[in-house]
């Protein structure tokens, strides 16, 4: 065999969607079938941003939800390749695996913030950092000693605060639950959560929809930094300026 391993020069894509299809069956509507994804195949490499484009209602958000695991897939595969070359089919991964991936490898900025009630904006972001780096359970740790947790939380809050400041969220809001925030303020908390942990795969669903020009520019910077760190990004951007600034390729939904 004389084949040289040129494949080492081009690592496999971080994400490979193969013939993904999904339909909703509405049992309360006499089993009405709604096809929402039909035979979607695409690939995204490390450091690349793929923009999903097409009229609304064609399954762009649905694909992101399938990748995040909050929707199941009917047929096809969603291969995520880890840094070490192993790969996992997100469509068939066990719930535990999906949760572990969400903690460390998959970032998601949904269209609307869905936050735990009563938790402050700062802690929503800080908790995302803590979840990604859980201190291993100490079998003989004192369950009543909050010291180690408080120390970790303090560090995470500092990091979370820096991100919220960068997104121009007034510091007076950090300690409040975002339920009463404006759409744009909630969206910035959501963005901070999505970008807090360096993700191997980053899913962005209209991240700039309700932001002003200044904050749109911050998000563009965050996306470019994530690409430079090697994240593979799949995004929906109705804002053409943002899309042109970050997307390397487009995938058209017809």
């Amino acid at each position, binding site marked *: 065999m004389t084949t040289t391993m040129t494949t080492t020069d081009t690592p496999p894509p971080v994400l490979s969607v193969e013939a993904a299809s999904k339909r909703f069956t509405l049992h309360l509507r006499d089993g009405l079938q709604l096809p929402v994804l039909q035979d979607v195949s695409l690939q995204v490499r490390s450091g690349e941003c793929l923009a999903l484009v097409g009229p609304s209602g064609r399954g762009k958000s649905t694909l992101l939800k399938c990748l995040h695991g909050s929707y199941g897939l009917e047929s096809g595969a969603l291969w995520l390749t880890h840094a070490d070359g192993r790969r996992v089919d997100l469509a068939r991964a066990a*719930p*535990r695996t999906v949760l572990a991936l969400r903690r460390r490898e998959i970032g998601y900025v949904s269209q609307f913030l869905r936050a735990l009630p009563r938790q402050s904006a700062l802690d929503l972001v800080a908790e995302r950092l803590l979840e990604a780096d859980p201190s291993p359970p100490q079998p003989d740790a004192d369950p009543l000693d909050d010291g180690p947790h408080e120390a970790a939380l303090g560090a995470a809050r500092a990091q979370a605060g820096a991100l919220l400041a960068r997104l121009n969220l007034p510091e007076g809001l950090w300690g409040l639950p975002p339920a009463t925030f404006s759409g744009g303020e909630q969206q910035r908390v959501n963005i901070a959560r999505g970008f807090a942990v360096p993700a191997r795969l980053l899913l962005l669903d209209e991240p700039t929809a309700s932001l002003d020009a200044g904050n749109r520019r911050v998000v563009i910077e965050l996306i470019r930094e994530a690409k430079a760190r090697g994240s593979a990004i799949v995004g929906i951007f109705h804002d053409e300026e943002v899309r042109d600034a970050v997307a390397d390729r487009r995938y058209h939904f017809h």
Partner: protein
Amino acid sequence: MNEWIQDDGTLPILVAQDLGHRFDRPGSTDGHWALRDASLALYPGEVLAIVGESGSGKSTLLRTLAGRLTPTQGRVLYRERSGRVVDVHACAERERRVLARTEWGFVEQHAHEGLRMAVSAGANIGERLMGRGERHYGRLRETAERWMARVELDTARIDDVPRAFSGGMRQRLQIARNLVTCPRLVLMDEPTSGLDVSVQARLLDLIRLLVGRLHLSAIVVTHDLGVARLLAHRTLVMRQGRIVEQGLTDRVFDDPQHPYTQLLVASVVNA
């Protein structure tokens, strides 16, 4: 138990295989199946919610998992701290009692079933420790105080009996009483129902905090999808004694597959 090993080599802490429970009707040969063909696995640090309406078999499933109700069919396997696997219903009653006191906790819907109503809050918390051999009064009292503070109860009320406590305080006391021996698995039967909404919210926040901080594995029975959404990694839906759907909590609620789950999700506001 081996077919339940995860890709990453994680072993389940609890496994139920084809559980069935039939309640016999007096004077009749055929009984009523409250539970049929229920199989599940719970992994370390995982919170599983069991949802369904009254009579769906969710409490029967929980009580069978807890070893309190003997199944007509199937078995429940539990992996101890030591790694040894115990068949919960085949082992001796004595062994089951030791497990219930040391490795498990059980939070009842009605606090009076899980507390000793006529003895002090401090004694309620200390009971499991005394069962384990702790006799030093000062240490027992100090531990009880620290646990009262942990569940946000006023430590000045350590000598009060639970009868003098509100519903929410009783649930907090019940939780402290269970967690004082650092169990690995906590089973909760509708822990927040019957409480005022604001009390419910604070109790849920506390349960969520403790489960995460103490790395507990937990199973929560609830008819409230909001409770499942807030606490559970995975959710299992029951109807007429059978598990009709189970999976990631957000997937079960956002993309329900079974007609009954779709009905359940459509019936609540912002589940």
